[in-house]
């Protein structure tokens, strides 16, 4: 599936974040979204996921507007890792991660063995296999972030929208997470979009990028054209020894 933003304007009543943003995400691509705090990165991710209406413009899934896709069909294709989630959840880590199968469920009630098998596999992948039975509330910040990543992996969408996937993670798990998602793009032809704060990670790991400027028009396109020192220094307002 090709997910495209066509002339998107994002913002809130009384505050426009970015105007006229257009780009298309194809299978196998890995995108970085960069920008300062409050530049609209999260709002863009929510609009691409179809859970927030843009002020103007349209998000398309292939050739049809995303809004025309049903909620379940949308969630089968697009997975969103939120930057923030409410912390209270009563159940275990496994109970939590299995919820990623919700859009694919075949019956209203049963927890399919297949769903549990997938969830356990992704928990192992995130080094959480031993904690599957623990209450989610007892996990540390980094472990919780890995559980949230495991949920999105269990959802198994064709487009992964990851809002700050590396937050709270130690160095080893940051690298492991980047390896996991770049491999999904390269070998499984999934599309991956990551909000990142480190332009050097974006340069090394992503083939495309979106830069959300505070005062000028956004830039989007292939990494070698967008992620130039000049563009990045203007974005962050600091000299970058890249």
């Amino acid at each position, binding site marked *: 599936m090709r997910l495209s933003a066509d002339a998107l304007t994002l913002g809130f009543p009384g505050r426009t974040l970015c105007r006229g943003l257009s780009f298309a995400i194809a299978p196998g691509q890995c995108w970085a979204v960069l920008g300062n705090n409050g530049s609209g990165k999260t709002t863009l991710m929510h609009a691409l996921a179809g859970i927030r209406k843009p002020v103007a413009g349209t998000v398309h899934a292939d050739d049809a507007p995303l809004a025309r896709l049903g909620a379940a069909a949308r969630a089968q294709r697009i997975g*969103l890792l939120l930057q923030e989630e409410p912390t209270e959840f009563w159940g275990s880590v496994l109970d939590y991660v299995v919820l990623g199968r919700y859009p694919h469920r075949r019956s209203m009630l049963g927890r399919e063995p297949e769903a549990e098998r997938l969830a356990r596999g992704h928990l192992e992948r995130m080094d959480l296999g031993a904690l599957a039975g623990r209450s989610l509330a007892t996990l540390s910040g980094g472990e919780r972030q890995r559980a949230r990543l495991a949920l999105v992996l269990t959802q198994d969408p064709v487009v992964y929208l990851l809002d700050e996937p590396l937050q709270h993670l130690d160095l080893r798990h940051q690298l492991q997470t980047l390896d996991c998602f770049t491999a999904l793009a390269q070998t499984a032809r999934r599309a991956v979009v990551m909000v990142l704060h480190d332009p050097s990670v974006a340069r090394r790991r992503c083939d495309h990028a979106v830069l959300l400027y505070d005062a000028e028009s956004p830039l989007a396109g292939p990494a070698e054209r967008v992620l130039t020192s000049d563009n990045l220094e203007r974005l962050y307002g600091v000299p970058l020894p890249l």
Partner: protein
Amino acid sequence: MSRPVVILAGFAALGAISLALGLAAGSVRLPVSDIAAALMGHAPGPVGDIVLRVRLPRVLAGFACGGLLALAGALLQVLLRNPLADPYVLGISGGAGLGLLAATSLGLGYAASQAAGMVGALTAVLIVFGLSFGAADWNLYRLLLTGVVFSAGCGALISLILLLAPETAVKGMLFWLLGDLSDATSAHWAWLALMVLGTLSVLGSGTLNVLGLGRSKAASLGVPVRAAEVAIYIVASAATVAAVTLAGPVGFVGLIVPHLVRLLGVTDYRWLIPSAMLAGGALLSLADTGARSVWAPLQIPVGALTALLGVPVLFLLLAGRR
């Protein structure tokens, strides 16, 4: 067997015991064989009348009422994402109480007062729904605040009615306000509501699990969030209206029973909903059996006993989890 299955079976057994105790307890001692014969329709005369016309309707009313309150509490705790939500937080008991007490103080009869209580409860549902869901900037805090403010307004008017009412009427009013099953003679509607609303909730329990992750995450996983929230509000309100018109605002069951089930380790709504309904039914029918037999011939309102039973149980569970 997995833990949720054991807990559910345990509450089903407790429910059956509570119904049996309710049938056995009373001023006339009846052997088990007589009760069984009466239930099978083989006990004509006074024994049959006592079991089938006096005790059975009351114990069934108590069970249905407790099940409905626990269901409403569990649903509202998800909807409002607030563990302190109970069935009355959205003003339904306030509306029902105001309608019923106003009608009683105007000298209307029993049936008319009951009808006025029902009208009050439904009016509360419509007003709170209209003021919160109707707004463009709709959110859960608005719903909660509207309900709390509406309840406070009803509470003030109820206090005024109690102050101005003739002394002879006040005791009856207080009984109703605490929650009392002594007038609950027919529970057909409550059982119908329990079955229908319980089934709907169990069918939607997968969605309830996902809604527990918050609105944005639920939306990203394909839940039509707004429609789901409206549906939860309607089901929880219908359960509360059915319970309140049967027994008045019996306290504590709706707040505490869902937590009790969670503390026992059942957090998945597919199991939590039926377990809470059985536990609520069992708790309320046990409390009502106690309320009419412990101080017999004096009868106390069941609402006073639900708290007396529920508080130590919950404290014990909390202490056990430290």
